């Protein structure tokens, strides 16, 4: 976690906005192993996100309450907490899919529209008659726009992204015929093509097998090493301890945010559970929000 900057400006030295070194995508092309293929280079300043006293919720009931802090550019953060802790709501709020009840979200170095957001699989229409190539090519939206066709060179990019996630031979398959793991690989391929400097993942490894998780983690690590800011909502605390240097522990309110080892302590986890269970649905108007 980093402290949010004042409205006047960003403390550039401490947040490390930086130019990336890996500009040559060909350096990655042709690799056969999953996670070792093409990754679209950033070519722009990595993004950071700051939350200022952010409250998100539904029908005046806060699901995320007065949350402040920042995701530094190039950081890799897990968002954890019990069910109903507001993790997915936080991601939706950051992406602008949910209007804050109070506070604000500041994007630095990029904008929400240029970020990549992977919702939970249940939010997608898996029976829609579209091919894997059709879905992955949507990652090129900013190049294709409303009507531009998929040219041979763009099609090649799609194929490379599919190879990166281990779906090289799946381009013409109907999405409805994919398994849960294959479906998630496809969404990662679309995310790769977006070339976003900020990536938000909502439970990306839920209900998929160990091998697929490892493959997708390899892709995620690669994107992070590229300098992209990655935020992932997760439930597997062991996975978080081993693979995520930063953790935000949420229970509708902030419990802890910082280095994972400092956040995932027994006391903090107990506090998270207690905050969740102590939640009062009949609560009066929030004094901080009304002030």
């Amino acid at each position, binding site marked *: 976690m980093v402290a949010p900057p004042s409205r006047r400006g960003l403390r550039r030295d401490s947040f490390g906005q930086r130019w990336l070194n890996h500009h040559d995508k060909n350096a990655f092309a042709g690799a056969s192993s999953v996670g070792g293929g093409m990754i679209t280079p950033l070519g722009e300043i990595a993004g950071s996100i700051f939350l200022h006293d952010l409250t998100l919720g539904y029908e005046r009931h806060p699901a995320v309450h007065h949350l402040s802090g920042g995701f530094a550019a190039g950081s890799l953060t897990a968002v954890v907490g019990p069910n109903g802790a507001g993790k997915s709501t936080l991601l939706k709020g950051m*992406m602008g899919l949910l209007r804050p009840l109070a506070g604000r979200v500041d994007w630095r170095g990029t904008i929400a*529209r240029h970020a990549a957001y992977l919702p939970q699989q249940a*939010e997608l*229409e898996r029976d829609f*008659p579209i*091919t894997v190539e059709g879905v992955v090519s949507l990652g090129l939206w*900013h190049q294709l726009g409303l009507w531009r066709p998929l040219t041979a060179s763009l099609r090649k990019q799609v194929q490379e992204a599919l190879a990166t996630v281990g779906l090289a031979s799946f381009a013409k398959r*109907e999405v409805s015929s994919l398994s849960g793991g294959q479906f998630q690989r496809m969404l990662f391929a679309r995310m790769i093509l977006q070339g976003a400097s900020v990536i938000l993942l909502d439970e990306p490894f839920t209900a998929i097998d160990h091998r697929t998780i490892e493959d997708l983690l390899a892709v995620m690590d690669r994107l992070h090493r590229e300098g992209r800011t990655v935020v992932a909502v997760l439930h597997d605390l062991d996975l978080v301890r081993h693979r995520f240097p930063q953790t935000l522990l949420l229970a509708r309110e902030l419990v802890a945010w910082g280095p994972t080892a400092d956040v995932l302590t027994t006391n903090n986890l107990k506090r998270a559970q207690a905050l969740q269970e102590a939640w009062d649905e009949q609560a009066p108007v929030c004094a901080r929000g009304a002030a």
Partner: protein
Amino acid sequence: MRRALAGCLFVAIGCAPIGVFLLLRRMSLMGDAMSHAILPGAAVGFLLAGMSVSVLSLGGLAAGLAVALAAGVTTRTTILREDASLAAFYLISLALGVVLVSLKGSNVDLLHVLFGTVLALDDSALLLLAGIAALTLPLLILIRRPLVIECFDPSFLRVVSGCGPVVHMVFLALVVLNLVGGFQALGTLMAVGLMMLPATTARLWARTLGGMIGVSLLTAFAASYLGLLFSYHATLPSGPAIVLTAGMLLILSLFLAPHRGLFSRYWAHSHLEG
């Protein structure tokens, strides 16, 4: 009879692809709701100018767009989902339409609006239908990509582009426009039949979006042609005859469609190795 066939084909060209998108967006009943929603506008037109095709069309278009807009705004600004807000506004609209029709006119007039007059299409009506078809196809091609994204992954479209609400309203406007065109030929209720039955049939036969639109168009053409013949030889109203034919094609498909039909469930298929 040739005019009638040409009119039905024009209606099919616009309605069939729109029906496919309605089906895929799980809005199959929306066409039905909108077909009722245009009634008060057509009734106002009827009260003002009698059975004038252009005035009826303009009235129907205005009422349909008003209901679509009201339902769209309600859905995006309140807790009500699209089906609930649309149901609410179309019912209000339908009741208003029936009241207006009852002020002047008989049940025969109401039947005329509801069931159409395909065998009495004049040049101006044919031109209108051709114009609507000519407008619908290019517009659908233009908004095809965001429509697909909104069906498959709506949050993705909201993140990458702000065009979602505009595309949605353009699509709803096309639905209304084609229903208004359809009621010239088939009547408001029957036009929905030519919109949804071929699309539903296509879902059983085709795996891709393009394939679905193709099958839907062919089914709508076949239903128009066979339905008109059926209507002529059996001296039946043309609109219901066409929709009944489309219904028969759907029922046949429910049994015969490969991989997705009822027969295929009980037919022993050889399977592949990988």
